[in-house]
């Protein structure tokens, strides 16, 4: 092995692949554009939906209750503080709900007035459609509005009777949030970011790996290369580091993608689920460890990918093997997508792919367990050594190199 030769091969391979528009677009541009776009679109959608549901709500009165008195009662006393809810007139209220012209209908009991004046309860029936989001939301808002109205009337009545309204409130509820400002990172981000990161590291090197061995064999450039001065180990390592590098190109571009999305719309990071990201407080050593673990994962897969690409009889066959590898690697990723950082057990840190995803979940959650991180790093190093050995032995197998 000769470092200079490794460097020559590496330089050439990077230049070669960087000129491949197809690879470049899929591994660089797509994550950089798609991710922010998706987040903004989905995020924008979620926000718009939330706005739509709670804004501009129209309701109507049932035919029997459509009197000026009731209208006045609703507009002044019940919905006085609810400018987002409007009372309108419609001919067929039930049909209007179905047509989504209005969200709910209020039906007052016939002798509500006498009952109210004599201090007896009367009934307001809220007619709504459970299958319609906006209608269901209006049920809640109307219930709350009527509840507030009730409380006001009760207070007035008690005051009239010279009783302190406080009697109605034996215990007052308050709440205090002790969440650490710096640690209040978003659960959605903890779920999506480490998962995507792990997946990209695993798939990022695939186009390069396919091209660099199976592709060379197919294009007849491999034999001339093998008869140049460098030994096989140097050629292999040059290719190996190229594949490793490309496993991270997509990662870097996806992070840039997230950053672009964040700059365009801060809410896009969390797909519009509110809770803005307040500055993370990630301890640097933990972040460094997590990055090292990710690099080790990239190298582990670079080794497997080169080995498979060497073993393959043709470019097509290499592509097939590598897509199976991709699927195999995605399964543990999906399986642990919803696991909360605090619930990840130590053994998870020994399993490739999962260890990287788990490490980043832990780091994003802000609660660091260095034992687990070190376990992940050590096991990763072992995997790197194993798969590099596998790639080397495959690269020295005459049967694999010269099959046709």
């Amino acid at each position, binding site marked *: 092995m000769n470092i200079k030769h490794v460097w020559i091969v590496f330089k050439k391979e990077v*230049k*070669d692949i960087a000129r491949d528009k197809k690879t470049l677009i899929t591994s660089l541009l797509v994550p950089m554009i798609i991710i922010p776009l998706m987040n903004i679109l989905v995020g924008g959608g979620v926000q718009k939906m939330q706005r739509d549901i709670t804004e501009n709500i129209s309701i109507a009165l049932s035919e029997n209750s459509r009197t000026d008195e009731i209208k006045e009662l609703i507009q002044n006393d019940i919905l006085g503080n609810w400018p987002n809810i409007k009372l309108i007139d419609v001919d067929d209220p039930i049909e209007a709900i179905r047509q989504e012209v209005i969200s709910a209908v209020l039906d007052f009991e016939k002798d509500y007035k006498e009952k109210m004046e004599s201090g007896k309860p009367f009934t307001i029936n809220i007619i709504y459609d459970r299958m319609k989001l906006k209608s269901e939301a209006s049920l809640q808002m109307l219930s709350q509005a009527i509840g507030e109205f009730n409380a006001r009337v009760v207070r007035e009545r008690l005051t009239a009777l010279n009783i302190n309204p406080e009697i109605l409130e034996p215990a007052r509820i308050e709440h205090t949030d002790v969440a650490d400002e710096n640690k209040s990172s978003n659960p959605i981000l903890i779920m999506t970011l480490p998962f995507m990161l792990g997946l990209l590291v695993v798939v990022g090197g695939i186009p390069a790996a396919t091209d660099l061995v199976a592709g060379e064999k197919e294009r*007849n450039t491999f*034999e*001339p290369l*093998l*008869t*140049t001065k460098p030994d096989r180990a140097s050629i292999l390592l040059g290719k190996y580091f190229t594949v490793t590098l490309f496993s991270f190109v997509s990662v870097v571009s996806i992070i840039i993608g997230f950053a672009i999305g964040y700059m365009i719309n801060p809410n896009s990071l969390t797909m519009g689920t509110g809770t803005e990201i307040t500055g993370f407080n990630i301890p640097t050593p933990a972040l460094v460890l997590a990055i090292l673990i990710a690099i080790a994962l990239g190298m582990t897969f670079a080794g497997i990918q080169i080995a498979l690409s060497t073993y393959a009889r043709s470019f097509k066959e290499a592509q097939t093997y590598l897509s199976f590898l991709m699927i195999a690697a995605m399964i543990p990723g999906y399986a642990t997508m919803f696991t909360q950082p605090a619930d990840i057990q130590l053994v998870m840190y020994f399993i490739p792919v999962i260890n990287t995803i788990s490490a980043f979940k832990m780091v994003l959650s802000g609660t660091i367990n260095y034992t687990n991180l070190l376990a992940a790093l050590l096991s990763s190093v072992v995997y790197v050594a194993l798969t590099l050995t596998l790639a080397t032995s495959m690269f020295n197998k005459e049967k694999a190199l*010269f099959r046709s």
Partner: protein
Amino acid sequence: MIKVKGLTKKFGDFTAVNHISFEVNDGEIFGLLGENGAGKTTTLRMLATMLKPTEGTAEMGDFDILKEPAKVRASIGILFGGESGLYDRLTAVENITYFAELNDMDKESIKERVNYLVKAFGMEEYANRRASKLSKGMKQKVAFARAIVHNPDIMLFDEPTSGLDVSAIRGVHEFIRECKRQGKTIVLSSHSMSEVEKLCDRIGIIHKGNLVDTGTIEEFKEKYNNPNLEEIFVRLVGGKHEH
């Protein structure tokens, strides 16, 4: 000088090359003549240190293929098969330069040598064009230049004209003659009698892994008392084994 000593290659139980020995003098073209599957490529791959011999060895110039494979590789140039095998996304010059770098040439001499080769092969017009954009003939010249960029003493050609059209074949033959003119020691494998007769100083006939006979073309004609090399070949190969 090339000295092949009892070179043998087994793939499992199958013996592809069986204890073959021959010598090639400096500046000589040695033709390895054999049918499909005779063991030509396997032999040349062993000489180029791509395959490890099961038994035997060879000296390529001053170096032994088992003891100093890197030095052997640095002193040989190859052209295997009719396909040029260039990196499509690299330019002609980049393709040539890559092999110069791999063979440990320094920057200055690479520049000098590449410039020289570009002129010598008349590649000025497309020197900086990507290989994917080159015609077959242009690619062939780039492949020639690449094979000799490090000025090797020994050239190995494995069926270099297979699958090529007439003008491309002529190009290869001219290149081989030019290599000889430059004093290189050459091994050429072929299954074409006329090609071997045209180019080679001495030939060896290989059949099912065995080197059946070696000698100059004149020696063959005298020994078998026949002016037609093709008939000699059929007698040696077909006659002995097929009946």
